[in-house]
């Protein structure tokens, strides 16, 4: 369970580093974020929701059946969109209105 950070997109705001519940994200000499302990990621996706540059993606490890999809979120008002990009390029988007409750 882990994340990948695209350094070319990272703007060095440190929001991901700030929020990680495992203190696993650090910044390099150029101020860009990287995950120092990828095996220690819980998969909570807190950092992904923080990133204003959509530079962080979440993926499932192959040991738990991951098939190479990368996930990030985008927020517009009350809508939190989850974008799941499959390895072949297909993107599946799920919009969640944060003002609406789970029904089940």
């Amino acid at each position: 369970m882990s994340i990948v950070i695209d350094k070319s997109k990272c703007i060095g705001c440190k929001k991901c580093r700030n929020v990680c519940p495992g203190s696993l994200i650090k910044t390099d000499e150029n101020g860009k974020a990287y995950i120092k302990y990828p095996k220690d990621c819980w998969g909570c996706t807190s950092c992904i929701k923080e990133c204003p540059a959509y530079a962080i993606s979440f993926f499932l490890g192959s040991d738990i059946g991951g098939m190479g999809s990368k996930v990030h979120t985008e927020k517009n008002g009350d809508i939190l969109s989850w974008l799941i990009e499959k390895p072949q390029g297909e993107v599946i988007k799920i919009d969640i209105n944060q003002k609406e409750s789970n029904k089940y």
Partner: protein
Amino acid sequence: MKTEKISTDVLIIGGGTAGCYAALTISENSDKKVLICEKAHIKRSGCLAAGVNALNAYIVEGRKPQDYVDYAKKDADGIVREDLLLTMSEKLNEVTDRLEKLGLVILKDENGKYVTRGNRNLKINGENIKPILADAVEKAKNVTVLNRINIFDYSVKDNKINGAFGFGIESGIFYTIEAKAVIIATGGAAGLYKPNNPGFSRHKMWYPPFNTGAGYAMGIRAGAEMTTFEMRFIALRCKDTIAPTGTLAQGVGAKQINSLGEVYETKYGLTTSERVYGTVNENQEGRGPCYLRTEGITAEQDESLLKAYLNMAPSQTIKWIESGRNPSQQNVEIEGTEPYIVGGHTASGYWVDTDRATTIDGLFAGGDVAGGCPQKYVTGALAEGEIAGLSAVKYIDSKESFEKISDEDTNSHLKETEKYLTDRHSLYTTEQLEEAMQTVMDSYAGGIKTNYRFNEKQLDIADYKIRQLETLTDDLYAEDFQELMYIYELKERLTVCKSVIAHLRARKETRWHSFAENLDYPEKDDKNFNKYVNSRLENGEIKIIIRDLVTGGEKYEHSN
């Protein structure tokens, strides 16, 4: 090392669910200064980092708090503190209202009433539940939050707490924190046992892998009485993603079935431990794998489930999407997790009175670290945070003077941390010893490997090996303060392991399958063990204390 001394009225260790709510309570009901020390950042720390999509502890219309007590008591086969459960249950609805006022979205019907899921549950959008709580804490008067501070020991003199010691994992500052009262809210312990997927996804566990049992360990070392560590919590979870199953089982009514398609849950019983046990047994007898039967649910349910899991355990939704099949098209395989010690689900933790006072003077406990009161879930942790907060204020108001932390105490703690940062002669890394510990617990103390079962001979081996590993921690080396935290986390886990082993050995019966399944004593023994197994460290040895149950209408008070 840079050192700093801070004084406060109330120190709250751990800024998760219970800790944040304790701070809010104190801020609103007193003028006491509060300091929260959190080892990550309160915005997303603790159990609620990813979110949660139901409030599982609520008294629905027509039900009473006592009904919740009865439910939790039945699920734990009697080994609960009814006085603690009742005082918690009486606050469940009040804290729920408060959460809604803070901004939590709760499902309501057209008449504005909460829509309930069964007798105890509410449906919510809890993706942002922790940011909501953290935001309220940031705005609360007299509350200071220190993020990324790892507290590693109490300062206790003559059984009275005077504060705690910690270090900044990014700042590198050593902190001596003096406090008139301390609330411990560090959560339970994950990572004692080998996890389901020990490789790359070793931290893809249900309980937060960053909850290392710090609060338990500090209490054990300080001589606090602890209870029911033998009631381990093993969660039945979606295979691989270790995502919760309640939304499937209770939300869309998915039954547990084996690979032959037979519903087996009714065969074994419906308590939390029986559901795990049944799954283990079906697998062992060749009828695995086991599933939650979701095939055939509606398209609308499909869509709702995909969203519900994104709000709580996003990996499960990704799993469905990657497979190209929704839950209506494939049953969800389930498995038991490695055992956790978690007082919010079972009854493990500090032995407290109804004020949530521990047996250490001035130390209060709330949430997963507090024992005797299982099935807390989110709202129960909030309720206990509130009780502990109010009790800490009352305690301070009742005392005239408070002791300072001695320089000698500070210096010995400082020296210990400095040693780990300078001596470089260890052959082993912290990670290697952690793995060794998990292997020992897995093999000899009822881990996944043995289908959660154990006998006394195995426990003896576990105890011996854990003590051996403990001696190796003295020589560990830390390159920086984060690694220093990892050393302390390992030491905490080893301390908790020893107590878990001692408790498993002391309960010479099998009351709960899987949670504490002693093959030397495979039957329940109500005559001798319809009691609490407690313990206290005395002269370096774990002393077991068997106590009578506190049942209906009784209220336990510490007498010494």
